[in-house]
């Protein structure tokens, strides 16, 4: 007992102890944060059926959507190329889906196949800029957003399309074991990404390139091919997220609903992915996504104004960035 107390005292009083303590807090603060959020929102929205099955379903739906974009951003960030084209890709894909499926009356499957093919082409376009022309990923993808949105504005005279043929919703909201198909798709994506990152050669290469691209090149890692693959996977995941949110809203997304980069990058760095590449685990991302989904769901159920939403997302992004970089430096995971 006495020795335990001594150790505790050491933890608070010596510099090394305080450092260990801070490291522990920065590495695990998300667990209590989520619990606190649930308690606070639960208390505030008790009479609005916060703890109901319907609300749990809503929470899982928004979690599924954010999982796809976060998964996309995560693997590109891991190779050291932040993919900021989410808004452009999802926006253009949504409009194309609206034109094919709603206006031209295509069946669901062919529309989805065309959408995935177009997303693959968009991923390849990004990779030409990033891999072949060696433009920084963040800048290249931001540049392409304007091109994609410009193209999307040409369809249907720049008006939103109401996507209300029931077939798409039937597929996306189809219940399997009490949860919509979207949620299962997101879970499957997480599992696949987990296996790729932790148990395949591709995953090892992704971490190696992100940690040090030059070292990876001289060790024989096919840097170009791996980077290209991640950018294509990212575009396809974002496209699927675009399809889901189009179906959910029943409208095409004019400027891309999955938000700009400042909405999507937040959860990824909150989950401890290094913005410099090479560091980050998918389990931690999931934790950050749950935090984000609980936050989002609470704000929805309380009918908060956009003002509070914007403010909270801004504070979260900035706070996540500060914590992320500090923590990675403390653990000496960053090259200076």
């Amino acid at each position, binding site marked *: 007992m006495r020795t335990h107390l001594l150790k505790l005292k050491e933890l608070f009083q010596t510099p090394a102890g305080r450092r260990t303590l801070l490291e522990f807090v920065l590495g695990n603060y998300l667990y209590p944060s989520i619990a606190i959020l649930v308690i606070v929102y639960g208390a505030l929205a008790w009479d609005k059926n916060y703890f109901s099955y319907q609300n749990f379903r809503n929470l899982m739906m928004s979690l599924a959507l954010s999982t796809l974009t976060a998964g996309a951003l995560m693997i590109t960030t891991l190779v050291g190329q932040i993919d*900021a084209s989410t*808004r*452009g890709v999802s926006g253009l894909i949504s409009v194309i889906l609206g034109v094919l499926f709603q206006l031209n009356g295509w069946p669901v499957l062919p529309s989805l196949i065309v959408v995935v093919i177009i997303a693959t082409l968009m991923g390849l376009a990004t990779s030409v*800029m990033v891999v072949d*022309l*060696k*433009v*920084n990923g*963040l*800048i*290249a993808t*931001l*540049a*392409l*957003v*304007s*091109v*994609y*949105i*410009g*193209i999307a*504005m*040409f369809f249907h005279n*720049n008006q939103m399309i109401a996507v209300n043929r029931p077939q798409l919703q039937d597929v996306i909201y189809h219940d399997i074991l009490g949860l919509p198909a979207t949620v299962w798709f997101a879970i499957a994506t997480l599992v696949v990404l987990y296996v790729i990152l932790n148990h395949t050669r591709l995953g090892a290469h992704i971490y190696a390139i992100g940690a040090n*691209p*030059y070292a990876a*090149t*001289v060790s024989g890692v096919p840097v170009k091919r791996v980077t290209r693959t991640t950018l294509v996977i990212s575009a396809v995941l974002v496209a699927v997220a675009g399809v889901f949110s189009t179906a959910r809203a029943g409208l095409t997304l004019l*400027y891309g609903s999955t938000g*700009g*980069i*400042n909405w999507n*990058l*937040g959860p990824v760095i909150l989950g401890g992915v290094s*913005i410099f590449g090479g560091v980050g685990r998918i389990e931690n991302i999931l934790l950050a996504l749950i935090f984000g989904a609980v936050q989002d769901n609470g704000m929805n159920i309380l009918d908060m*104004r*956009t*003002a*509070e939403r*914007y*403010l*909270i*997302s*801004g*504070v979260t*992004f*900035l706070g996540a*960035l*500060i914590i992320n*970089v*500090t923590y990675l*430096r403390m653990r000496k995971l960053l090259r200076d």
Partner: protein
Amino acid sequence: MTGSSFLVTEVGAETRSARWRRIIMGNPILLFILKNGIVVVLLVELLYFSFTLGDRFYRPQALRLMLLNASMIGVLMPFYATAQIGGNVDLGTVPVGALGAVVAGLFFTIVGFPLPVAILLAVLMAILIGGLYSWVVLKVRAPAVIASLAVGSLAQGIGRVITQTWGSTYFQIEFRTPVLRELLERGPLNIPLTVWLMFAIYLVYSVMLSHTKLGAHIYAVGTNPSVARLVGIRVSAVTIFCLMGITIGSVLASILLCARVTYVGDTGAFSAASASAAGALAVPITLIGTTISGVQLRGGRGSLWKTLLGLLFFSILTVGMGLLNMPAQWRVIAYGLAIVLAVVLDSIRSQLQID
């Protein structure tokens, strides 16, 4: 630095980049295009509008409008370009500038303070945001590109709180200032005062960059911050100067823009006034302008005066397309292609080490 040295397989073999470098250096036309991409696109643009618009394009009113449009972003450009030369790519000018203007609008229209006090409070807000931004870049040591996104996101949140509480349903606050409107309409030689203001800022900043110690230090920090620190340059002070310049510059530019459209809003008047499709542009117009004018994305290289050509390119595009009644889509695509071209040229230049 290019990492190409280990790609040499045999002694004496030429790497691919070395071969391209030799070809381009031996061809004066290619070299000129690479170094002065902005001059080429500007010429193409002028030729195109001359043919399609004819005399309408060269009327004094159109020219005046082009200059006025250019000056709206032009008063921010020297600050922005200087920061980029100092190694900081900033993506937060639009929300930060918008927040400043919203603060000015709040105190001027809602509270009823005199205009100078309102502007002073906006500048104070800019200093606060700039301080936070500098802290994140210098103490937390996050790259400016991400830090500006995060700070911009926070600024947009604060701006939205103000506009949603005191503004109209469109999150706007009225901003009618005869004094500032006067600046935009009148001036010597029938050229608005803001244009003269832009030239003045350009002059001061270009003298600072090319003839003072601070200017040399900015180039040094942008080229290699570690070496700059070793030779005794106060890197932190230089960086704070650059970042504070951006936030204060974008607030002042944003206030001018808002005076022109007579309202302030949290989504920013930059995109509204320059692309007429707010929200469609993911990259601040300033970044497109500097990069297409040859300011290196990694910092350390670039000429301030060339960015004036970049500004002219955009304002001529806006006015020309307006005269041609082209739909907004084309403008967004044109901006998008301009930034794609700009970053590709930048990448080729820095890989082949041509500057």
